[in-house]
């Protein structure tokens, strides 16, 4: 099947998302053994001075570089329609992030196709494409048949990545300038420019994850300091963010960061499926919880059933002693 990949290079995490798509393509034997096997990627970017860097870093061989004024889904959708309406591909693959989800659904609608969000895997059954994704807050996996072409889907967040270092001279790309493109439906005037930083949690090899059981914002601040001393990043569960004990960019889970550290130490986390989604790719999960029935204990490699405060205080002391020794 002819397919295309859509990349939002206005996002600071575009390379990671592109590597996830490349890994997905390889797992599904869609690359013909190399990164050039996919049909084409369409890459949206805003800043001209970043174009060269994007071209160097992208793990693809054939792509269109489409310059826009700034990330705005309505403009990207209009441009995509213009580019694709004549000879649409059968499959469009979007990254596992919020723009990928949005563009997949809206683009499918505009092309009378079908869409799925957060797909982990695809299969072909009786000539139909089937997408597999988590449902019921991550408690189950559902297999969905796509009914209408083109099939548009975004990947699940935090899929495995494949890094391909392709020399720039082997890359085949064209430039398309839509930076002056406007549409009649232009609702947004940005009051604040977004911070262009990759999420620190996604890069960390050691994450301490704090749950609702930590109790208040002062305790979260204390754990923030402890994490720093241990060389870890602090992530939190949704109730912690909803209570405004920690900022949104520390949220772990299906609607936050999806991480894959060497070690994830969870403190007073119950382990609901939407939270677990965010840490399930960790190599080792260590759970500390005083509730012996907490679901996280079954989903962890190493478990301590006790007061997390005493455990973390002892750990920080032992680490400090080791440093001083």
């Amino acid at each position, binding site marked *: 099947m002819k397919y295309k990949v859509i990349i939002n290079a206005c996002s600071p995490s575009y390379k990671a998302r592109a590597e996830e798509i490349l890994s997905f393509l390889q797992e599904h034997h869609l690359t013909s053994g190399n990164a050039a096997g996919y049909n084409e990627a369409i890459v949206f970017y805003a800043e001209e001075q970043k174009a060269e860097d994007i071209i160097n870093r992208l793990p693809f061989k054939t792509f269109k570089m489409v310059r826009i004024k700034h990330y705005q889904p309505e403009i990207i959708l209009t441009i995509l329609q213009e580019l694709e309406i004549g000879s649409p591909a059968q499959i469009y693959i979007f990254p596992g992030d919020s723009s990928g989800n949005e563009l997949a659904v809206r683009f499918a609608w505009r092309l009378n196709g079908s869409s799925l969000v957060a797909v982990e895997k695809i299969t072909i059954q009786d000539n139909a494409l089937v997408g597999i994704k988590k449902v019921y*807050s991550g408690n189950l996996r559902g297999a969905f048949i796509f009914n209408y072409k083109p099939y548009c889907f975004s990947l699940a967040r935090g899929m495995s990545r494949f890094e391909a270092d392709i020399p720039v001279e082997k890359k085949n790309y064209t430039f398309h300038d839509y930076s002056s493109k406007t549409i009649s439906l232009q609702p947004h005037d940005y009051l604040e420019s977004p911070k262009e930083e990759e999420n620190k949690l996604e890069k960390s090899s050691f994450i301490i994850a704090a749950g609702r059981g930590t109790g208040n914002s002062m305790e979260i601040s204390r754990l923030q300091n402890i994490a720093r001393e241990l060389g870890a990043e602090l992530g939190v569960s949704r109730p912690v963010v909803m209570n405004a004990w920690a900022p949104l960019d520390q949220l772990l889970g299906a609607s936050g960061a999806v991480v894959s550290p060497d070690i994830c130490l969870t403190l007073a986390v119950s382990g609901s499926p939407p939270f677990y989604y965010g840490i399930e790719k960790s190599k080792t999960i260590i759970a500390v919880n005083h509730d012996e029935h907490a679901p996280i204990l*079954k989903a962890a490699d190493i478990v301590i059933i006790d007061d997390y405060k005493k455990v973390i205080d002892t750990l920080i002391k032992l680490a400090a002693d080791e440093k001083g020794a």
Partner: protein
Amino acid sequence: MRILVLFKIVPDLDLLQDKEWTIKNTLPVETAYVKKIINVYDESALELTLKMADHSINNEQQIELSALTIGEPHADLFLKKLLALGFNNTYRVQCSADLRFNPYAIAYIITAFASQYGPYDLIAMGMQSSDGDNAKTALLVAEMLTWPCITGVTGFELRDLDLVAVRNINDQGLVEQLVHEPAVLAVGNAPCSLLRVPTLRDIKSAADQETAIISLQSLGCDLKKLNRQNDTELESLNTVNNTRAGLVIEGTSAEEKARLLYEKHLKGWLSSR
């Protein structure tokens, strides 16, 4: 300004134990016996809208709040609560069909409702529900209405007669933008947005207000057709197994367990980094 907020009543899935998710590829999952709650993202949409209205009272701007759900009579108690909290109108589209995995049908019904009972200036709802996990409804409503859509919304407030300041989180970080109505707002993780509780006085003052019950037929919606037109179809369900080794570190005190954890599993790894 007229604002429509959409919400869905869902089973509280946190109350289900692991064994209750052990299914044999049967459809659909039976959750009728589980306690019902307002979908968490929709709850945030409702509360953020009430906050916006609070602010408009101070600014003497007129805001009319309407809430809509699609489903069966068990939603009426929630609608009554919303009337007590200050919503001017509440509506329920009577529908007993299982549309958990048919966001197309839900979006179509919402659009038909908005066309008949509108015009609305803003339509707000949660970005996804806890059972279907489709994350498509708000986007499809925006497409059907040809309105812009802001996703991952964490807050919004009225700035001028037709101008709303919307905070949202996207792949570039937190953004604040001015949005000209009309627009669809898909609410995400919004801090401090648990739905407020009505006082006894609120409840008494709303005692005479009723929810309007609307039929699908009156909106021109044919369920058979909507099911046929759904762009994807759930074929099967399977259990997710997250079980790991669960090696329990035993000891006589928390300090001893921490020491064992450190010596056996952390010390070497930390020093090798």
